């Protein structure tokens, strides 16, 4: 499919003509957005404070109609090659079933505390979208569990995969893959203890 004779052409030109970009920009004139596109997947980057309003607009506006939130994902950009606007990102994977259209909304967050613990970081808060799509409840819990990003007005923000006393947020890049000894420290049952 790609024309290999033309070496100067960018194989993936950024193409920002997704109609939702214009629609959101028009509705939120004095807000700051950025946008990107890769192989037909368009991403709108939103300021954390605008998130809930933009999401509500994108769900309810009759030209957007993103009636399904298929996933909420966290990303840690520590050590990433390119410069990113923040250390962490939360990505919302939206879907408009009526048009068979997928669209991504992204929020960048930068921690204000060291990230190796589990203290609550006031900079790592973002508004929960469970009031718009109730299905976001568990996916947001997973992002909280894995990255320590907390969601304001979430109905039940607890860890979902690791256990309650887990002393870290394991998908942060500064957390070692093999853990810090959590898997070794547990009660041992031997043949006499039952």
């Amino acid at each position, binding site marked *: 499919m790609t024309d290999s004779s033309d070496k100067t052409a960018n194989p993936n030109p950024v193409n920002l003509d997704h109609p939702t970009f214009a629609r959101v920009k028009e509705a939120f004139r004095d807000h700051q957005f950025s946008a990107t596109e890769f192989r037909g997947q368009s991403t709108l980057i939103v300021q954390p404070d605008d998130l809930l309003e933009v999401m509500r607009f994108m769900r309810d506006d009759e030209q957007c109609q993103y009636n399904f939130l298929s996933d909420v994902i966290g990303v840690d950009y520590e050590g990433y090659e390119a410069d990113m606007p923040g250390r962490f990102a939360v990505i919302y994977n939206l879907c408009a079933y009526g048009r068979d259209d997928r669209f991504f909304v992204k929020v960048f967050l930068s921690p204000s505390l060291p990230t190796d613990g589990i203290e609550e970081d006031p900079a790592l808060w973002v508004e929960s979208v469970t009031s718009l799509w109730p299905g976001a409840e568990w996916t947001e819990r997973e992002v909280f569990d894995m990255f320590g990003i907390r969601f304001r007005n979430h109905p039940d923000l607890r860890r979902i*995969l*690791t*256990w309650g006393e887990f002393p870290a947020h*394991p998908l942060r890049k500064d*957390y*070692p*893959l*093999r*853990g*810090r000894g*959590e*898997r*070794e420290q*547990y*009660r*041992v*049952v*031997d*043949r006499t*203890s*039952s």
Partner: protein
Amino acid sequence: MGIEAALTSDTILTTSLQRVINWSRRSSLWPLPFATACCGIELMATASSRYDLARFGAEVMRFSPRQSDLLIVAGRISIKTLPVLQRLYEQMTEPKWVISMGACASTGGVFDTYATVQGCDQFIPVDVYVPGCPPRPEMLIEGVMAIQRIIDEDNIPPKGPDGRRIPLGIALQPNHAPRPQPVGVTVSR
């Protein structure tokens, strides 16, 4: 395998009580399948008709620990699951035996991560380790037969130099002869 093989005449059987107890125990192992991952599929295959674990008296899978005497740990154990496994082990009544089935249950396998137990023998006693990823049903049957040998020895598996139980050192030769590759194909008409 049956007791009739030990009969010398049609009518009278003399034996020691312990041997009869051992015989009945090893011939009616009731496994508790703790199948957490893909090894569980192979465990099901072992129990089903082609491999037929019933030939070894171990077909009665019990999902209650209080009714079973052989715990088969089949699959990776996350640290969140570990308390459940330990509790099941503690609820089983003596005498009881444990098979650690597959690379994951025995060592953590490829899942060398913060959330996976690197070998369930760190936290519960294990009698027999069955290698493989997943072990073939034949291999698991070999493990069950190893348990039967432990029972035949009055529940005493070999002891290590420090007096603690060590698993049986069973090495299996593959039961097929590898052929040079590629294999020529002939089509008969």
